[in-house]
């Protein structure tokens, strides 16, 4: 085992891919897609089996082997696929996932109880194979492929063979050989090339069927000579070869062992290094290593800023040039790191069909699920945070969105509900849309629930717009489901989803039409770590505002402001925009001369600042680890001169 320790990570990573492929294809199979599906399942199982056997994880190997046996029956058409079988196979694939988790954390998969499922598979196997087959085939050697033998056995002397010398041979395959019949066939094929095999015992058909006990007797007509025949017959795992000319009827040739142990150690030479540089085009890297490199790049970005400032202060021209070069390299490095860290959304998407299926089955609903744009890439850190919210939304869509088949029928809709998730890149953002053609959100029920929960007063409810009412869904402690289900319940509501998305610097939006369905739209930054910010100063203190949310920078004319209720607004190009004083954050300033207009979704507001210092690419470090989330601030950044500057989170400010 220990010699394979180095391969554990690789084993887990690749096996997870195969596991995903397995689940995906099992679901396709359930839908009735047979083409390629069974082959794909077979291949994944086969690979999982082979790899786990190599690593010595026998529990996993055994499970995969049993599943593979079941599929060999399906593949050669001697068994039908039922939904019970699919359920059983999915349960088995869940076990594989558990095993992989176990192996990843240092185990060997033997802790996972597989007895029940394996017994069920074997039961199924015997049920299926008994009526149709003769029962002699055990699970181990169910026929996989019909061999079409295109080299019919040559029996008896054929024309001209009498003129060639004939030999009788007796060949014994080594006792520890694992596939004696295959070895025998290899010997026959090799001898075929030297002459004509006149007779052979056991027959080729018997060997083909696996009926071979370890010894091969044959006579061959050949001009090649005894030595050549001996060489052709010898090879790995051949214990003895006896050969005699058919003419001579003397005592048998003494047995000769050709299985001399060929010392492998003697061949260990380092000749291979010269060509080793070829061909390695991809490699796998531990994600922690990437994180570490990313941290170093971030440090480099900060220090680059510092160098720039020093050069500016001292006006050293030579240094300016050098920094410009460093600048270019650092930017490129940063870009490359970003690209390396991007992974396709399929990492999450691939799990979703299974989730939809399980929820639909649990609720007795029929759902067609479509995924698009899984190739869209996101930074790994964003991906990590996205998994749970997406699963939750998907569960919601099926559990709360899609109606029961009867209800749908009554509403004149197709019996089968439709859920679609799609992702695409839109300029600087990645947009994920999840839509269903279910009942939509019942605004009145939402309001009633909010009143009942004490979130709003009945009077306020009257004045609420649809959008405002939908916003209530995202309030902590709100859940419209009449009963808590095992599936989408779990004690988290949409407020948790919203928080998770906001933690990723993303936003969530809902559109709904009662009776026709809902659409959740997530807008996410593809990467979180490095952002373009505008550095501004208010009351002598610096702040960063993400460029992506700035729509305009204007002169601030004090006399153009108006009081509206508690707040203050300004008329800018015929548009009334609320003014957002950051007094709480940086104190009062009398010298605000510039207005930064920021926008979040359709809402705009403007922040008065003293001066704009410039634009800079900065690394935003999250606050959460030491002071928790602060409304309005997404994190801090360290500027070149070492000052710590808060970066505004416009989404929560507006």
């Amino acid at each position, binding site marked *: 085992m220990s010699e394979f320790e180095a*391969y554990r990570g690789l084993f887990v990573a690749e096996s997870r891919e195969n596991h995903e492929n397995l689940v995906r294809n099992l679901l396709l199979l359930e839908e009735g897609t047979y083409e390629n599906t069974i082959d794909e399942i*077979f291949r994944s199982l*086969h690979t999982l089996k082979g*790899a786990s056997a190599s690593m010595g994880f026998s529990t996993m190997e055994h499970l995969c082997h049993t599943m593979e046996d079941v599929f060999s029956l399906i593949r050669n058409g001697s068994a039908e696929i039922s939904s019970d079988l699919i359920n059983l196979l999915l349960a088995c694939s869940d076990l594989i996932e558990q095993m992989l988790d176990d192996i990843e954390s240092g185990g060997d998969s033997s802790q996972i109880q597989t007895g029940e499922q394996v017994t069920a598979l074997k039961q199924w196997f015997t049920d299926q194979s008994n009526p149709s087959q003769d029962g002699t085939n055990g699970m181990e050697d169910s026929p996989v492929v019909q061999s079409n033998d295109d080299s019919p056995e040559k029996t008896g002397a054929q024309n001209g063979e009498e003129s060639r010398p004939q030999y009788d041979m007796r060949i014994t395959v080594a006792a520890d050989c694992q596939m004696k019949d295959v070895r025998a066939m290899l010997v026959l094929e090799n001898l075929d090339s030297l002459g004509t095999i006149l007779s052979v015992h056991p027959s080729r058909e018997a060997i083909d069927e696996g009926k071979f006990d370890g010894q091969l007797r044959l006579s061959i007509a050949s001009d090649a000579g005894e030595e050549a025949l001996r060489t052709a017959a*010898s090879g790995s795992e051949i214990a003895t070869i006896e050969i005699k000319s058919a003419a001579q009827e003397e005592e048998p040739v003494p047995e000769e062992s050709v299985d001399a142990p060929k010392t492998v150690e003697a061949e260990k030479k380092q000749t*291979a290094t010269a060509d080793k540089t070829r061909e390695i085009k991809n490699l796998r890297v531990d994600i922690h290593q990437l994180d570490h490199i990313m941290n170093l790049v971030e440090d480099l970005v900060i220090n680059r800023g510092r160098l720039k400032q020093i050069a500016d202060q001292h006006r050293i021209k030579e240094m300016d040039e050098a920094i410009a070069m460093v600048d270019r390299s650092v930017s490129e490095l940063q870009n490359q790191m970003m690209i390396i860290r991007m992974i396709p959304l399929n990492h999450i998407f691939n799990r979703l069909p299974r989730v939809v299926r399980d929820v639909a089955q649990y609720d007795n609903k029929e759902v067609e699920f479509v995924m698009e744009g899984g190739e869209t890439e996101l930074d790994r850190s964003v991906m990590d945070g996205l998994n749970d919210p997406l699963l939750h939304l998907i569960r919601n869509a099926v559990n709360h969105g899609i109606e029961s088949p009867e209800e749908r029928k009554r509403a004149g809709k197709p019996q089968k509900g439709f859920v679609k998730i799609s992702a695409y890149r839109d300029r600087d953002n990645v947009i994920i849309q999840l839509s269903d053609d279910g009942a939509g959100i019942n605004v009145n029920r939402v309001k009633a629930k909010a009143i009942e929960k004490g979130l709003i007063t009945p009077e306020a409810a009257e004045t609420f717009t649809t959008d405002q009412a939908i916003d209530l869904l995202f309030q902590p402690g709100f859940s419209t489901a009449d009963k808590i289900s095992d599936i989408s319940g779990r004690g988290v509501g949409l407020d948790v989803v919203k928080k998770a998305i906001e933690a990723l610097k993303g936003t969530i939006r809902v559109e709904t039409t009662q009776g026709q369905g809902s659409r959740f739209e997530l807008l996410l930054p593809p990467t979180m770590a490095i952002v373009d910010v505008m550095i501004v100063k208010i009351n002598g203190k610096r702040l960063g505002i993400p460029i992506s949310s700035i729509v305009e920078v204007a002169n601030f004319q004090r006399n153009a402001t108006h009081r509206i209720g508690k707040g203050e607004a300004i008329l800018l190009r015929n548009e009334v925009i609320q003014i957002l004083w950051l007094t709480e954050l940086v104190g009062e300033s009398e010298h605000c001369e510039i207005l930064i207009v920021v926008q979040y979704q359709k809402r705009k507001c403007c922040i008065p600042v003293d001066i704009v210092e410039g634009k800079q690419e900065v690394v935003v470090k999250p606050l959460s680890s030491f002071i928790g989330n602060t409304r309005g601030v997404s994190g801090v950044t360290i500027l070149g001169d070492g000052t710590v500057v808060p970066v505004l989170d416009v989404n929560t400010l507006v």
Partner: protein
Amino acid sequence: MGKILIVDDTLFMRTLLKNVLFNGGHTVVGEAVDGEDGVAKYKELKPDLVTMDIVMPKQNGIEALKMIKAFDPAAKIVMCTAVGQEQMVKLAIKSGAKGYIIKPFQAPKVLEEIKNVLSA
């Protein structure tokens, strides 16, 4: 000592096999990830020997074997197999495979088979 092309769809198996072969003094001149890739790399690299997995996407090992044999009848191809796949290997042997190795790989057995096939 030979120049060897490994054809296997899993990085895991390729890595295992590559190390076994390297420790046995062989040179792995290339790795292919499926049958199609294997045929293309064979034509490009002209290796002394190919280790060919059987169950692979796009083109399985048997099909790839036939393609390589059609291109170069003298090609030496060793099938990578597992217990339970006897029929497949027999089919491969009838199509011209010169040897087989069984997963899980045992380094001495793998090296012996490779050596025997190379010297044949």
